[in-house]
């Protein structure tokens, strides 16, 4: 991520953010985009984790930003602006998902989640998938498919924590769950993805994909 688009991570940037919030509240509305720009990717990712559709995710993220703009006066300085924005986006995406799937109920938590146990399915040696293979679109698509196959509660946590690098605490706040739940869901999401991507187990694509043209990437 280019430095100029990175979320504020130091006090000087946070001060700048607070000033932008105040100026936007005071009527300089055009500054709001500058305020949310560092978080664009995160908002899109959060919406996509729930809706799993580009157009819907973009629409939900846009709507969430507009709601944030209209409700900026309700934002309290003691909270993190980025977490507040993410919460609004997640609520917006969840609401759309509920409307789309009215009548279909996704389980809130499974028995396995409640007791935290999950046995990894494959005990074979893990064969490293090098980061360089991400240059290939088909690899990215397959990883995205694996992620999409997880239940929503796991996708949400995994995307915020492992793809957007939020802390456990910020992930918990953004999703409105406890830190313990974040850790439990994160554990399961990581292990399930590992199982899905383990060559030969639940991921027969991996062999076809990585061994094509006779070239082994590892």
């Amino acid at each position, binding site marked *: *991520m*280019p430095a100029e688009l990175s979320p504020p991570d130091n006090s000087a940037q946070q001060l700048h953010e607070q000033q932008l919030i105040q100026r936007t509240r005071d009527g300089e*509305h*055009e500054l*709001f*985009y500058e305020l*949310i*720009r560092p978080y*664009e*990717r995160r908002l*899109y*990712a959060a919406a996509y984790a729930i809706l799993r559709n*580009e157009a819907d995710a*973009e629409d939900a*993220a*846009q709507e969430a*930003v*507009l709601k944030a*703009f209209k409700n900026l006066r309700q934002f309290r300085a003691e909270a993190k602006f980025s977490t507040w924005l993410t919460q609004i986006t997640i609520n917006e995406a969840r609401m759309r998902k509920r409307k789309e799937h009215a009548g279909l109920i996704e389980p809130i938590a499974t028995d396995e989640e409640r007791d*935290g*146990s*999950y*046995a*990894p399915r494959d*005990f*074979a*040696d*893990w064969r*490293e*998938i090098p*980061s360089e293979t*991400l*240059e290939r679109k088909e690899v*990215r698509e397959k*990883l*995205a498919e694996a*992620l999409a196959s997880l239940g929503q509660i796991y996708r949400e946590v*995994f995307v915020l924590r*492992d*793809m957007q*690098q939020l802390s*456990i605490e910020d992930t918990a706040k953004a999703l409105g769950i406890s830190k313990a739940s974040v*850790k439990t869901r*994160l*554990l399961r999401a*990581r*292990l399930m*993805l*590992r199982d899905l*991507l*383990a060559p030969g187990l639940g991921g027969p694509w991996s062999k076809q994909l990585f061994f094509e043209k006779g070239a082994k990437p590892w």
Partner: protein
Amino acid sequence: MVVDCEQVWREVSNYLDGDVEPRLRTAMDEHFRSCHRCAAVLEGTRNVVRLYGDERMLEVPLGFGRRLERRLLEESTPASRRTFLGWLVAAATALLVAGGIELSRTSQSDQPALRSQLAQSAVGVPPGLMVVVAEEGKMFHLAGCDFIHDKSNLRTMPAREAMREGYAPCIRCLKKYLETSVG
């Protein structure tokens, strides 16, 4: 302190996050040295975290920022001013359309269809900038760009020539030129 495999699986995620007590960490380190299977679980999970944490895994649709900014501008501009702006835009559009019709009568358009529907326009890229293209590719790149897929069959040409042939700019190596025109 000794841990068994089940305890290791429960804690492997916290272990990766550096979120386990020192005694437990030491016990898990010891376990990984002796348990081949749990070591494989650890390495696989670490690999998953590294792969999905790569920014290439999240592709935001092209033009997302620009559309968001535009919508925000529309919503944050007072209605009266928006109406006035709307008239201005409509008038400008009408002029452009009229001009476009006139131009099309006198000359062929020099804007070919892009090879990829998802590509963004190369507005902002200096026309004289030397770039490379792959015969089967859809993008033009700066020489040496990591995102050139077929490096065996490259042609070098000015950006204007690549655009004329329908190639779109690589959003990685030519990013700095695109950000001025696309949000």
